[in-house]
């Protein structure tokens, strides 16, 4: 069994999907941070219908089955989609069934978990400090950078760990947006699915173990962040 796992670990195909996943994460994690943290701030502080609608949209991937989310995004970003068609016509960029689709799937899946902790933090005690900054005449970007961010950096980091973890394990949305094309869009999670489907349990085991190690590392980091001293 050990030889089979070792052989699977040395397989160039396994190396490819690990590298692809790292590339997807290298794009998705900065987007989660740069978009998710300000979005959490705005959703936590904002009022009105527009904010409520935006909040609902951000939460959708938590509530809807990933396949349904993926299908919706496929309709939106497909060749004839509302956003996909202009992207293809003006920028010659095709999002679905490529790296862009995988990155979009990772960001979509991770965003609610990135946003929620920040949203909760700015609604708590930090809310008073934000109001204080507002009354001192500061616009929201200044308040966000100089008051909110230094205070909710733990929540931002927690959201980032959770969001990255969710993005890393994403399957449903990635399957529909990336297409699971072997040698092109088969990330680690999709490759586990493929390996189990073809009966290559050693390959699935190696990749699942890898994800488990990353998940444990993220959990320990989260606990340390919360001062639980692991």
């Amino acid at each position, binding site marked *: 069994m050990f030889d089979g796992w070792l052989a699977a670990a040395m397989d160039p195909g396994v190396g490819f999907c690990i590298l692809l996943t790292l590339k997807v994460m290298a794009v998705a994690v900065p987007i989660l941070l740069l978009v998710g943290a300000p979005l959490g701030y705005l959703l936590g502080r904002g009022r009105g219908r527009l904010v409520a609608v935006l909040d609902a949209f951000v939460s959708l991937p938590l509530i809807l089955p990933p396949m349904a989310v993926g299908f919706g995004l496929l309709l939106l970003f497909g060749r004839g989609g509302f956003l996909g068609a202009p992207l293809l016509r003006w920028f010659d960029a095709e999002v679905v069934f490529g790296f862009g689709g995988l990155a979009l799937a990772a960001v979509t899946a991770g965003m609610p978990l990135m946003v929620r902790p920040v949203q909760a933090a700015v609604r708590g*005690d930090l809310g*008073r*400090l934000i*109001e*204080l*900054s*507002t*009354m*001192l*005449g*500061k*616009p929201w970007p200044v308040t966000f950078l*100089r*008051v909110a961010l*230094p*205070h909710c950096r733990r929540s931002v980091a927690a959201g980032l760990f959770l969001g990255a973890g969710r993005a890393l394990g994403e399957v449903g949305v990635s399957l529909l947006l990336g297409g699971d094309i072997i040698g092109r869009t088969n990330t680690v999670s999709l490759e586990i699915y493929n390996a189990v489907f073809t009966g290559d349990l050693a390959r699935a085991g190696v990749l699942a173990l890898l994800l488990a190690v990353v998940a444990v590392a993220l959990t320990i980091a989260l606990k340390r962040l919360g001062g639980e001293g692991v």
Partner: protein
Amino acid sequence: MRDDAPLDLRAHLKKRLRHFTLDVEIACPAGSILVLTGPSGAGKTTLLRLLAGLDDPDEGRISLGGEVWLDTAARVRVKPRLRGVGLVFQEYSLFPHMTLAQNVAYATRDAASAARLLERFGIAHLAGALPSAMSGGERQRGALCQALARRPRALLLDEPFSALDAATRAQLRETLLRVRDDFGVPIIHVTHDLAEAALLGDLVVSVNHGVLDESWFAEQAARRLEEAAALRGRVATASPEPERPGESGKSGVAFSALSVTPQKGASA
């Protein structure tokens, strides 16, 4: 302190709250302190937040001199950060990750005036200290400095002294009276402390269940006076009677009008 003349703050605001409707009309002249008092949950802090623009009323109007900050009928609403209001809370009145100097400098680009304010309030020696290393009184003094550093056109104070001891409160009351005289802006001060209201207020307004209640302050003050008188009476009559012969060794102390038995563990 200001180039432009200070202006009166006027407001008539209505807002439906959970248990009652807040419906209050107030006017605070420039250079005076309007004290808002009343029972807990009466709508005082809500009123202050409406004036600051942190909450919106269902209907109403707020103006400072001729400048309208809010007029729901005319769909006018000036953003809170553009109203030029200095706001001091009971807690969270300074940014805890900034030193006192950084806190005051955050409110103004004029570093020299920030330093002058600290000097003037007698806390320049704490410029490099974080709020966690300061006493409650020093923090609130710093909060006043911060609020004044941006040269506010009105000052709103939400129970800023309520968490402080009596001696510090007395000092800060003096400080606030100096601020009133030197800055000449309208100051609205929320407090539960009737003595503070009487000492600070050029005008004292009571809010009870969302509406102005002219009798509340007088009734509360009269009740406190009665309580004080009763207490004085007790103290006056609480001189121990001379021990009667043959009764030595009895526990407790007999008073002429009031018999008090010492509690377990307490010394008589």
